[in-house]
């Protein structure tokens, strides 16, 4: 079963190639035939000359990033992008969501749909569509939202997963919070789930865990690709315990998204370290799982600075109180373990009903996948995809800042001139306040 990736805007077209490289290297280096075949079928198709081509559509409103992505892949000699798999324009979206959504999106709808259709039809079976974008800019966010809408119309039954990169809280695009609010409010309806990475979190992983002195965007993207790869590479699942699952996205969604009101998924992966340290580290499954559990309940997104004082409340008391104690309540968790002796790992501590909301049936809250194949050079690797309160604070900050700006009506003229009105903004704010409220009251 294959995944069709749609890379949108600068961010999507920078992370995308890293993801393909990661899964390629991982499956090639693993030396396990079934794993390799399964991974390759999922992400690539093969030409008659044996060249691997990524199952990907690249979309951007300016040409430079796509050119770089395509050139770099070709130069690697290992895999490449399809010759006609990209669509770009010349002038960019100017970091303006309204320009992306109202102007570029509709203008290029047919071209983009044709490209996606071609990739989807090339798959024997479609596991799902994986759209990658940032929420801060204009193309990824605006065109990306429009494209997601088109894909939903084209493939109402298909699984659509959106990967979203959230910007640095200290600001990288001034109107980032507006663009984010407009994106999230609409995607929530259109997408099956939103998998989120925050630049702030990934940056800390790079600096504190991986000891990178001068962190580049490439470094950030490699970490994101590593974490995504750890989820999307082949694994044995509940539904498919002895063969690599052929329905990874479907299973992910049914494990985690039990209710349409709750679609925000966060991701953490341990251990994460520089390559030079890899050789000298030895981890045990109990150790890794203990850390991962505490990271979950204390909402630590990386394996450092974990607050071990936070504990699971014994009574399923009021959520306000537990919230103040720093406890992160979950709706559902999916754990993916890869590597040596994986079958010996005991994930029982994650099944504790006290971790979860009381109104969900306890056997629907925790799922476990695994694979005996070590992932991306790590002898043991544990990932947790969570539907929990962990993104609540960053989301709330985003909405708060966007609201402050909106109250002063700053930058409104830039959006209204392309067709997004103040009422559209209000609708978006309403949707997001609803989501914030839902997650707050877990």
């Amino acid at each position, binding site marked *: 079963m294959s995944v069709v990736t749609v890379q949108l805007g600068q961010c999507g077209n920078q992370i995308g190639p890293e993801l393909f490289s990661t899964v390629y290297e991982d499956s090639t280096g693993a030396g396990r035939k079934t794993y390799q075949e399964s991974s390759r079928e999922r992400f690539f198709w093969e030409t008659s000359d044996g060249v691997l081509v990524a199952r990907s559509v690249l979309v951007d409103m*300016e040409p430079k990033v796509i050119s770089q992505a395509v050139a770099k892949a070709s130069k690697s000699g290992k895999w490449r992008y399809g010759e006609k798999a990209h669509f770009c324009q010349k002038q960019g979206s100017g970091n303006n969501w309204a320009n992306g959504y109202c102007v570029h999106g509709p203008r290029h709808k047919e071209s983009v749909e044709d490209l996606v259709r071609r990739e989807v039809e090339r798959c024997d079976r479609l596991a799902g569509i994986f759209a990658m974008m940032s929420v801060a800019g204009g193309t990824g966010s605006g065109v990306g939202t429009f494209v997601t809408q088109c894909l939903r119309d084209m493939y109402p039954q298909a699984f659509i997963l959106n990967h979203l990169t959230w910007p640095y809280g200290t600001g990288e695009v001034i109107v980032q919070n507006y663009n984010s609010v407009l994106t999230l409010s609409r995607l929530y309806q259109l997408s099956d789930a939103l998998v989120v990475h925050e630049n702030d979190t990934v940056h800390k992983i790079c600096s504190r865990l991986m000891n990178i002195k001068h*962190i580049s965007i490439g470094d950030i993207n490699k970490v994101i690709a590593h974490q995504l790869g750890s989820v999307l590479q082949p694994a044995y699942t509940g539904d498919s315990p002895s063969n690599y699952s052929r329905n990874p996205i479907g299973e992910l969604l049914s494990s985690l998204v039990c209710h349409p009101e709750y679609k925000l998924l966060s991701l953490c992966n341990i251990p994460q370290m520089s390559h030079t340290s890899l050789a000298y580290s030895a981890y045990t499954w109990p150790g890794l799982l203990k850390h991962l559990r505490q990271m979950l309940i204390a909402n630590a997104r990386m394996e450092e600075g974990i607050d071990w004082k936070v504990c699971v409340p014994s009574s399923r008391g009021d959520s306000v109180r537990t919230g103040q104690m720093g406890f992160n309540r979950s709706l559902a968790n999916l754990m993916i373990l890869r590597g040596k002796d994986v079958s010996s790992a005991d994930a029982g501590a994650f099944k504790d009903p006290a971790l979860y909301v009381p109104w969900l049936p306890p056997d629907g809250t925790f799922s476990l996948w695994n694979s005996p194949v070590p992932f991306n050079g790590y002898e043991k690797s544990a990932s947790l995809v969570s539907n929990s309160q962990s993104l609540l604070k960053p989301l709330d900050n985003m909405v708060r800042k966007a609201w402050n700006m909106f109250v002063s009506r700053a930058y409104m003229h830039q959006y209204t001139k392309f067709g997004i009105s103040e009422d559209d903004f209000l609708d978006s704010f309403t949707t997001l*306040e*609803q989501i914030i409220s839902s997650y707050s009251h877990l």
Partner: protein
Amino acid sequence: RTQSLIRFGQCGNQVGCRFWDLALREHAHVNKKGIYDEALSSFFQNAVLVDMEEGVLSEVLQGPLRQLFSTTQLISDVSGSGNNWAVGHHSYGSVYREQIVDQVRRAAEQCDCLQCFFIIHSMGGGTGSGLGTRVLKLLEDEFPEVCRLVTAVYPSAEDDVITSPYNSVLAMRELTEHADCVLPIENQSLVDIVSKIQHMAHTGKPGSVIKKDSTIISGQGGVAKTEKPFDAMNNIVANLLLNITSSARFEGSLNMDLNEIAMNLVPFPRLHYLVSSLTPLYTLADVNIPTRRLDQMFTDAFSKDHQLMRADPKHNLYLACALMLRGNVQLSDLRRNIERLRPTLSFVQWNTEGWKTGLCSVPPVGHTHSLLALANNTCVKPSFMELRERFVRLYRKKAHLHHYLGVDGMDVSGFSEALSSLTGLIDQYSQLDSTNTAPSQDPPRLNIAC
């Protein structure tokens, strides 16, 4: 993706020449095989040069850059505008309107995708200021969707043109209403930067030798062989334009193009005056001296000595700020310095994280890295108030007014409206400044039924 460069008057055309000279130098540095690469060619096809007297334009046609332009790109007349905005705007404006629009349209048609008009002129004279702003209006009418970015050189208080306050204020009204972004430059700031560099170069202190070609005033390595007066100052402005367009011409991990600058830095339509600073001003030649710390470059960008107009953004209120980093600098350097400097700056309450950032891999010639900062900041207010003062001093006495009112199309209301436009702009800045003193509290959030 292309920009069209339209240069008006003596100042505009001289700066423009420096721009192309330095642009050629920059691309030659990167593209060893030839200098006329694709990225650069997009600029040259699309230039329109306008002057109402012949001196400067003839120099262009006879100068070392002559092969780059065809005579059709130049529009000129003979006698100049006599430093009279009304002559430039109304008289020549009407006469040359068609020709200029045709030429611009022709240039625009050659573009795959016209992204932006760069307009360069001084404010104090007659042609640049008058005709330049007339064409600005025409561009808005004919090409409403194309961004109009104006680099406007404001006169210093000691300017030798007596009527420069009239010309500047009359032009400013047009800029406020019809430009998308204005980068005001003050000659005095350029003079100060030039003398600072020359002083540094001549102190003879050990370890203070400046690396050849590396100053932002240097034209060495360019096509023009001889240095002319004002070249040093004009090179600074040319470097500004090079830095703004670097992301469009070279690759980088975080592109920042002109449309994004116009979007992020203009929160309200009329408040589009952006103060620019360029660092470093030079690179030291002695490789044994450790290169000035990267962080120092960021600190300098916010110092009033590096601004291209006399303004002190650090001690006023930021509405928005863009940072374009070039060269061998990484994301973490950018983030670290933003976090470091942020507490020392005041940002308006509704934009406390108002940063727009860009990273371009290719540095300017002679540097390993550089930083361009564009600030939308209330620090422009004092300069505008001073300009208003100078205008009022002349206007009150009706000095030289008859030269203007005698021009067909110009009447007194033009003056009063221009004055009230400037006053209104100053008031808007004052209002924002007043919000800085009030304690900031977040406005109440939207209430939804649970």
